């Protein structure tokens, strides 16, 4: 390896490097920098490869960081990484925000506290429950946002390996012995314990392609509320022309901020949909490793497939084998005369456990019930 590497003679250089990394999106905090300085203390700080590797080992925290690291390292210390090829960074493209995706004009309502009396709100909420998202006015849309904010989406409960004290169940030796000891060795009725239950993980795949433009905003808000509700984290992905994991972006408490973050992260609003390919990407990268295993997977899409329906069918079969339950929510299902004729939808249906509507508040409530384990729609 070349010895013409960085002169990492002072921590200042490394601190500057870490700052550049942070600017590029790597979470290289002070304790990580400390670790790097510690590492270089036992290595050769003048040698490029040592600096490269110790920085990569201490400052990065995920695979996504590595690409950024290579880029910043090359820019900061000159040349390519230590032997490694510096891959081209993906172009960061900021597109219009989510609100522009819908046909309605922007409302700007989520920031301000609304003064609508509660009674009016309640009655109009009832009307709003069954309205199609695509046909809402700006004011209704703002109200819908507030109603969507209270959604929770816990998965169907499953038994865990964990044991908790209970009235019935198997004997709990630990607590029984303690009880016996407390009574000076006199035997007492055994204490008992039983398995606890936890909700299953829920994975939401939200279609944000052009044909879903009228619904994407509402569905992402739904996903945001769902991701904040339960004990088990809900994972959210968007699918359009590419697959984007937006779970992290949705961790913002404020729905407006969360959706802005999603808008910045998702490069493919209103593109075409290649459901089959993207589903395969999801399964290869996440699902097969365990994210979909035993989970309730919800696909929110109209099933318009630009690619090969056979591929979609094959991937849906794969998903169906992995997941505990596959739910498909289709906003177009409620339209009069709807039949799943779109090639993608028809191909996917055989592998779907529950096929529900997804166009209105009431439909999403129904969806939440299905996810919780209610009978199929």
């Amino acid at each position, binding site marked *: 390896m070349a010895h013409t590497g960085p002169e990492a003679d002072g921590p200042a250089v490394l601190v500057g490097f870490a700052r550049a990394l942070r600017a590029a999106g790597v979470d290289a905090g002070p304790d990580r920098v400390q670790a790097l300085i510690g590492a270089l203390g036992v*290595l050769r700080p003048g040698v490029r490869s040592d600096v490269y*590797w*110790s920085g990569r080992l201490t400052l990065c*925290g995920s695979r996504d960081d590595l690409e950024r690291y290579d880029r910043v390292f090359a820019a900061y210390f000159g040349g390519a990484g230590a032997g490694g090829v510096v891959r081209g960074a993906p172009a960061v493209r900021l597109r219009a925000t989510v609100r522009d995706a819908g046909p309605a004009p922007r409302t700007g309502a989520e920031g301000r506290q609304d003064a609508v009396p509660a009674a009016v709100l309640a009655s109009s909420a009832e009307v709003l429950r069954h309205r199609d998202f695509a046909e809402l006015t700006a004011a209704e849309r703002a109200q819908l946002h507030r109603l969507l904010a209270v959604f929770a989406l816990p998965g169907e409960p499953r038994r865990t390996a964990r044991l908790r004290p209970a009235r019935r169940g198997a004997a709990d030796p630990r607590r029984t*012995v303690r009880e016996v000891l407390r009574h000076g060795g006199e035997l007492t009725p055994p204490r008992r314990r039983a398995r606890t239950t936890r909700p299953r993980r829920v994975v939401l795949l939200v279609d944000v392609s052009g044909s879903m433009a009228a619904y994407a905003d509402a569905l992402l808000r739904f996903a945001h509320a769902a991701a904040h509700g339960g004990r088990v984290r809900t994972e959210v992905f968007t699918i359009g022309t590419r697959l984007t994991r937006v779970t992290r972006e949705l961790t913002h408490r404020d729905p407006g901020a969360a959706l802005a973050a999603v808008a910045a992260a998702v490069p493919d609003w209103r593109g075409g949909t290649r459901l089959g390919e993207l589903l395969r990407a999801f399964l290869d990268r*996440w699902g097969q490793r365990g994210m979909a295993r035993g989970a309730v997977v919800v696909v929110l899409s109209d099933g318009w497939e630009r690619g090969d329906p056979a591929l979609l069918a*094959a991937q849906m079969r794969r998903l169906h084998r992995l997941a505990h339950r596959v739910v498909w929510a289709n906003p177009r299902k409620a339209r009069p005369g709807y039949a799943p004729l779109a090639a993608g939808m028809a191909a996917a249906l055989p592998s779907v456990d529950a096929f529900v509507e997804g166009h209105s508040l009431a439909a999403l409530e129904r969806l939440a019930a299905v996810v919780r384990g209610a009978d199929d729609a």
Partner: protein
Amino acid sequence: MRPIGRDDGHEAWPAGPGDVRARLEEGGYLVDDGLAVACFLALRLRRPIFCEGDAGVGKTALAAALATALDAPLIRLQCYEGIDASQALYDWDFPRQLLHLRAAEVAGATDADRLEGELYGRRFLIARPLLQALETASCVLLVDEIDRADDEFEAFLLELLSEYTVTVPELGTLRAQSPPVVVLTSNRTREVHDALKRRCLYHWFDHPGFARELAIVRRRVPGASARLTEQVTALAQALRAQDLVKPPGVAETVDWAEAMAALGATEVDAELAVATLGSVLKYREDLERARALDLTALLSVRGA
């Protein structure tokens, strides 16, 4: 230069990344630059290594290789959903405690305090892997598939891995005489908490290139002929470039070479490759796809 790491008196431990690499290679585990540096820093700075990468690229094998290289015992903790302290750290041996209690009763013991002291003594404590690792001088601790455990367990591990101490309420705090070398692996089924990762060295395992994979297979399957290992490695690399549900890892390549060698082959032919495909590809779709491919054509691409 003064080492930053705590001085544990391990003069026998490696002096630099090159030394670590040499020792690991002696034991049959081949590493690249980054992993050599990672292992060296883990030993020197007492930091756990956090290993991520596809299945079968050698994350778990690294722990075993480190144990061999350091001539230290390997202690393994397999994580699963719902794992908790009593399964990972320690538990009391209740049947023996009860038996002891009954025996004391029969013997007419009256001193309750003394009896309780006896019951919660070290001899009734069952050490699970984490406590074992703290109690064993210079060992390698493998925490396998940490992404399967839940958040609570991660938080619990956080304390243990930064202090290398454990508090048993009845006994007090137990401290490791010499902290173990810790290897954590994750398959990325979920994001592990940043707080845990920050305490670790992060290493991403890529699939090895042809030359390194060939060297690994040679090491692991010494009985196979040179031509066979070369062809098997080339085939595995070619399969990896195909569009498969689960591209084969190094572990599968080794299995494949072993399978063919066990059948007495010294050279790969299409028939043999198809017959043993089950040791590399574990999905029906992949098998069908590979059977449809012209495997001999894949071989000739590499010119092996």
